[in-house]
């Protein structure tokens, strides 16, 4: 069932190229026919070259001309087939990749958070490639292979049935030999790659911790362990490499035997019939065929494994394309919000067996600053996921300016928020591009002003190319603190009506943090802001502090009232001040 469905979808992707394939098949047939006819022509020419004074030049010349013509035509056909094939293969991959990438943009965060990103990358990049390689290039090779086998058989049968029989009977031996070796080396290869994986993991771990290894003087035990794995790898590699390298000599040996067999039968037939049924030229021709005959067999068996691979790759991409997309968008557009946020009886959990947020209710007036504090894993970040609608609440509603966020377009909702996350993220590009991420039309002056407001200007000017310095993936050489300053500058440039600051300043030392806080308070003036912070000093001035523990808001109020309560907040605060 599943295979059938996958097959159908694969067909739907290559359907636009059907005419192209038809041409390909036609051209391949021409190529095969001509390539196979050439040895016959050579044989004919040889037969006209009998001995001294017995050469029929008037016969030979047109034959040679034909050979040249055939070779040129076959060559042209080969070239065209490759060109058309390329077009179809790369076109299909392109379409597949684009579809997968567009899908990515519509997938819910719950999918992206729970699947390792490396795996998704490999589906979109590597699997798509392998799919086209295996399936499309394999397809013509398969056709050419079959055509060559059938063609060769046909030509040989026309020349002589007996010798054909010798070739047909002996050839499969080489295919079987190759199969046999492949089957028996498989386990050696898997042992080798397992051991290699073990060694790589060890190297990766030890070198990553090399400084710790040195700090504890553990070089020797480390080398001993390495030797142990390395020795195992050497043994398994030797086996895998040696046994697998037997394939070529063995198939070549069988081919040579076929060759000898053809030579024997052919020569004896020439002798017994006096060159009438079988001529010397035919013998030459047969020998060429015998040489080529096994090649398509090996290719075809290779193509089949590639097919299986390709289908498996296609299945992986299709399963990505089939993933459930994020819930439907609302229809209302949220204009510039006043910043009134209501969280009404909201419950949520990532894993349905474990409750996380339970019946949370918070009413935030426009312009209020809300601090969220509590130990790790208490649900602070989750709350933000719900506010931004990265996740949908299981129960209850979150509303902004009186509209449930499910009725709003995600775009307009998110436009109203400015967010700085704990995990800073910068894209590959210049510092300028990164600051202007949310506001691509910003002028240079505006960008510099935002950077100054975020206290990022001084260090940016010290970078090699200032604002035009190209940052590598995820910030390249910048320190965690500098990256955070750039993320803050991004928000400074956009000035949205609501802010979400998730431990935004955790990697910045307290003095710089203090400076950013000044900038922030300027930014936050009159705006609704949610601040998740580890350091209590940064949240002291908040209008409302939500103290969270195990998914519940255990206390709320301002700093003074919470201190008076002498509850959980009081404990946290005292532990810090002590």
């Amino acid at each position, binding site marked *: 069932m599943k295979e059938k469905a996958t097959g159908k979808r694969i067909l739907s992707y290559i359907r636009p190229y059907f005419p192209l394939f038809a041409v390909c098949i036609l051209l391949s047939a021409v190529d095969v026919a001509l390539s196979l006819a050439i040895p016959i022509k050579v044989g004919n020419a040889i037969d006209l070259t009998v001995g001294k004074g017995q050469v029929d030049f008037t016969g030979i010349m047109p034959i040679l001309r034909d050979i040249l013509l055939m070779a040129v035509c076959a060559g042209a056909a080969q070239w065209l087939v490759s060109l058309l094939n390329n077009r179809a293969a790369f076109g299909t991959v392109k379409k597949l*990749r684009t579809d997968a990438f567009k899908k990515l943009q519509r997938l819910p965060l719950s999918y992206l958070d729970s699947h390792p990103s490396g795996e998704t990358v490999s589906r979109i990049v590597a699997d798509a490639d392998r799919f086209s390689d295996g399936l499309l290039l394999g397809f013509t090779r398969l056709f050419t292979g079959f055509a060559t086998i059938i063609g060769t058989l046909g030509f040989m049968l026309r020349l002589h049935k007996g010798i054909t029989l010798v070739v047909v009977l002996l050839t499969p031996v080489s295919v079987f030999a190759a199969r046999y070796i492949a089957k028996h080396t498989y386990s050696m290869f898997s042992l080798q790659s397992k051991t290699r994986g073990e060694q790589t993991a060890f190297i990766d771990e030890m070198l990553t911790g090399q400084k710790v290894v040195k700090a504890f003087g553990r070089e020797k035990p480390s080398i001993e362990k390495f030797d142990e794995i390395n020795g195992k790898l050497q043994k398994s590699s030797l086996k895998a490499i040696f046994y697998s390298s037997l394939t070529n000599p063995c198939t070549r040996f069988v081919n040579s035997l076929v060759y000898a067999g053809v030579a024997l039968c052919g020569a004896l037939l020439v002798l017994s019939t006096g060159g009438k049924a079988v001529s010397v030229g035919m013998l030459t021709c047969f020998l060429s065929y015998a040489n080529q005959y096994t090649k398509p067999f090996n290719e075809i068996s290779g193509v089949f494994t590639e097919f299986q691979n390709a289908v498996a790759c296609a299945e992986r991409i299709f399963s990505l394309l089939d993933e459930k997309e994020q819930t439907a968008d609302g229809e209302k557009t949220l204009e510039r919000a006043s910043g009134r946020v209501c969280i009404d009886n909201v419950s949520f959990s990532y894993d349905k067996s474990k409750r996380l947020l339970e019946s949370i209710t918070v009413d935030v007036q426009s312009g209020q600053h809300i601090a969220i504090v509590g130990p790790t894993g208490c649900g602070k970040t989750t709350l933000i996921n719900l506010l931004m609608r990265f996740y949908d609440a299981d129960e209850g509603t979150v509303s902004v300016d009186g509209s449930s966020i499910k009725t709003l377009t995600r*775009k307009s909702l998110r436009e109203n928020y400015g967010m700085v996350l704990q995990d800073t993220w910068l894209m590959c590009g210049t510092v300028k591009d990164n600051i202007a991420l949310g506001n691509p039309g910003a002028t240079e002056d505006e960008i510099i002003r935002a950077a100054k407001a975020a206290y990022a200007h001084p260090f940016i000017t010290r970078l090699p190319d200032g604002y035009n310095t190209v940052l590598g993936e995820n910030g390249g050489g910048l320190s965690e603190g500098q990256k955070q300053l750039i993320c803050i500058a991004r928000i400074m440039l956009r000035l949205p009506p609501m802010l979400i600051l998730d431990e935004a300043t955790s990697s910045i030392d307290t003095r710089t943090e203090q400076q950013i806080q000044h900038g922030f308070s300027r930014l936050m003036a009159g705006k609704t802001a949610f601040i998740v912070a580890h350091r209590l000093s940064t949240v002291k001035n908040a209008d409302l502090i939500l103290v969270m523990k195990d998914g519940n808001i255990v206390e709320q109020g301002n700093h003074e009232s919470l201190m008076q309560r002498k509850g959980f907040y009081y404990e946290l605060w005292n*532990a810090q001040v002590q």
Partner: protein
Amino acid sequence: MKSVFYQLKFYKKESILGPLFKLSEASFELFVPLVVAKIIDVGIKNSDREYTVKMCLALAGLAAAGLICSVTAQYFAARAATGCTARLSRTLFEKIQKLDFPTLDKAGISTLITRMTGDISQVQTGVNLTLRLLLRSPFVVFGAMLMAFTVDVKSALIFAVAIPLLSVAVFGVMLRCISLYKKVQGSLDRVTLSVRENLSGVRVLRAFNKQEEQTAVFDERNSALTAIQIFTGRISSVMNPVTFVMINAAAICLLYTGAVRVDTGRLQTGEVVALYNYMSQILVELVKLANLIINITKSAASANRIDAILRLPEQENGTVESLSDSENAVCFNNVSLQYDTAAAQSLSDISFCVKRDQTVGIIGATGSGKTSLVNLIPGFYKATNGEVLLFGENVNNISRALLNEKIAVVPQHALLFRGTVRENLLWGNKNAADEELYAALRAAQAEDIILSKENGLDFMIEQGGKNLSGGQRQRLTIARALVKKAEIMILDDSASALDFVTESKLRKALSELENSPAVFIVSQRTSSIRHADFIIVLDDGKCIGQGTHDELLSACPVYREIHETQFGGAV
């Protein structure tokens, strides 16, 4: 390449026998067309059945001899390749163990990992292929030409023309393709980057509503990739048809020349067939050779990268094996440090002395030089100016083993290794008994982590400690250092993930340690160090204050500011 040749010396026999057997196989192959010529020109011409059968048996014999030779060759090549790379990879690993910190920084850990894995395995492939094929293909090509010359000099001249022309076609297309493949790879990298960024930055990109824009960027990169792939495909697909036509053209010339020569009686029919057969052998081998050369070039590049690592300077080892009972555990005398790659000093003119049982706090902004300072104590880096004394002896003169015994470090990055908790803790002291481990865990406030695990000390830690939280990892790394019972302990911002209650308990436990070591605590929080005997305040690599918490509050404005920003004036 030097290192590879050096290691191959240990496999001299294999490295010589491998190619030798391979060449023998190739020579057997070269005899085949001659035998066929004999069948035609002697056996068939003279109607000599016995001779014909004998010659066909000779063909089978050549095949068998070829099989034996090539299997032997493969065996020797595989042995030499795996053996040589195993030795090379061990040498490299050992070398990396001997590098000092500045060299490790310069080389880069991820680079070293690539050298140990990707490059080594590329070298293995290279050695194996070189021993097996490098001599074979040229041998067959030139052998075929030589054989052709023995058959008939004039016809053989066609070979002399065809081989260079074919080589130009094969190598020309290949070279062009190599540079194009690099471009393809570059385009592919950009596509991959797009996908990766859209996964790693999904929250930010969605928060800024970048989906459509990102899709447009991706489309553009994807189209560029497709275009360059199609172009490359167009070039690379030229090779087969062109060589096919060339080889057939050469065959036509051969047939014609052959016919003329046969007509004048200088050549026999079978010999023409032999020449034709030699011609067909050449093409296959040329293509193989071109592929081989690409592979060997890659391997040579890998080998050279490995050589570069092996040439790096090794860490120096001091000779002092025992230290006196100096009152001062650590003294810095006008110490400055400038990293090789840095434009400015990271530490300038630092002086202080720490007694055997004192606790020192080191505080300052990010990048002010805190970690640089403590890294000088175990000699991880060397002071550019001034001297660092441990128990009165210059740290550069002390042997690594002794330094390792005297100093326990808890690095900033809490890194644990795959293995049981016990194995990890024994890094501190491989002879420690379980009670000592528990005592260290207790002091590090980590005992509850172990007690909560079913198998206690035998709890398996995943690579990098992934199955533990950041705070748990930090406490275990502290315990690992405590197991050492060293005289100097360095905690480099190692309690940052601990909550305040746990941290204060840890501080108390540290002050009550039996062996009362000198303790260095690096922190960004004044709360972590306010109880220290004295505190060093760093700003941009300079010491701008030294003294107790109370002294600094009144005398050092920067310290006061740090403190106030953390407690909002709630002193």
